[in-house]
């Protein structure tokens, strides 16, 4: 291999590809050389680092990190191991955390959503205004409409079954919570009273109920 140390960038930071054959002492020199050359380029960026191409013991890893610290201003935030299993675990943990976050944090939208308009959100969403037929809201968390909801809504878009939909006048064309879909009756119910209602998921069914104290107590955000 004519280039024993290769530095590549990825989404989170850099990947250092190391020669598998070379003797470690010699490799260390190459590494310090390489990082010295590129110190200017990295400046004092913060990034994660991962190693490829060679199995490293903890000691060897520490040696390399020390070299990087000596030669550059780079802040290594963490070392990522190239292990699909662990990655999967991390991803799951991250997703769960994000899902929790999307449920508890929210964003506001002021104005009427009209036919053909789509509002998508990573977090819960509170609409101050009406959602008209033909409009659509997709949220990973909850959807709250301070107005009339007559369009299509999709709460818990990434599969969060604890999500709910709440509106001052809940009369949607279609409601989706996680993987469950409910639609409005084909013949509209005449003379239905306008009251604040909440739609939630229970035992695989979507229930719509007037907002009462008991229902409120059952919600866990």
């Amino acid at each position: 291999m004519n280039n024993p140390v290769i530095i590549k960038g990825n989404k989170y930071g850099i990947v250092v590809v190391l020669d598998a054959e070379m003797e470690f002492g010699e490799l260390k020199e190459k590494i310090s050389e390489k990082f010295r050359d590129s110190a200017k380029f990295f400046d004092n960026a913060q990034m994660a680092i991962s190693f490829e191409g060679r199995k490293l013991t903890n000691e060897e890893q520490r040696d390399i990190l020390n070299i990087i610290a000596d030669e550059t201003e780079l802040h290594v935030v963490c070392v990522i191991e190239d292990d699909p299993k662990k990655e999967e675990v991390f991803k799951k943990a991250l997703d769960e955390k994000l899902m929790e976050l999307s449920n508890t944090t929210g964003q506001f939208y002021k104005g009427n959503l009209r036919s053909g308009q789509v509002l998508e959100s990573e977090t819960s969403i509170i609409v101050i205004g009406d959602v008209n037929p033909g409009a659509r809201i997709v949220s990973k968390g909850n959807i709250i409409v301070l107005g009339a909801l007559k369009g299509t809504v999709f709460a818990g878009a990434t599969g969060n079954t604890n999500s709910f939909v709440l509106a001052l006048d809940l009369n949607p064309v279609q409601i989706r919570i996680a993987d469950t879909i409910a639609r409005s009756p084909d013949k509209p119910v005449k003379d239905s009273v306008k009251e604040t209602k909440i739609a939630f998921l229970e035992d695989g069914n979507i229930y719509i109920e007037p907002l009462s104290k008991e229902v409120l107590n059952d919600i866990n955000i």
Partner: protein
Amino acid sequence: MGEVIVITSGKGGVGKTTTTANVGTGLAKLDKKVVLVDTDIGLRNLDVVMGLENRIVYNLVDVIEGNCRIKQALIKDKRYPNLYLLPSAQTRDKTSVTPEQMQKLAEELKEEFDYILMDCPAGIEQGFKNAIAGADRALVVTTPEVSAVRDADRIIGLLEANEMKQAHLIVNRLRNDMVKRGDMMSSTDVVEILAIDLIGVVPDDENIVISTNQGEPLVGSDTLAGQAYMNICKRILGEEVPYLDLNGKQGLFSKLASLLKKN
């Protein structure tokens, strides 16, 4: 400086052209200098409704392409000296004009006229974008049918996205007897969904068909629709006019009463 008003709807066949003709004629009756612009390139009919078809020499595309001056393309109305029509081209399509060109045209017309009414084609394609390009305010026409209201809603959304300062609603072809039976949406229902200000309700009136076929707008005439259009014109000018009582046909008695009121 004049004001540019675009008359639009989303759905076709709800009465944009009839509204343009009547509102334009009404404003002219109220001593405003008005020009009606038919922006529906490819299909034109405002000239037919106005009864001016046989006088067309030049059209909108001729003006924009510089084949003639604006003055040459404007057709003076046969009844009102301060009412003009700029007809659309029929042999071209909507892509022959850009929104920027329409905006420039609107600016030029503003210097000459008090009101410039743009009759918008149905739909949300290029023609719609052209028609709203230079407009200061919009009149959204809908009939009390779910499909028309839905499309009107989409149009209002697009107008808002294009930062239209003012949009008003005209509910056209309302049949009061059907509303009473609960078979038709009332104007209140429509306003509730669309959530923009109402500027007029026009009842379903067979005189409209007659007037359209004769090329004589009926605004201001002694029909319910004629009065409704006149009221819309007055509201455009900023007057506060009470809404018409559309309850059934006007009896002799109420007609007498309204005559007395006028005097």
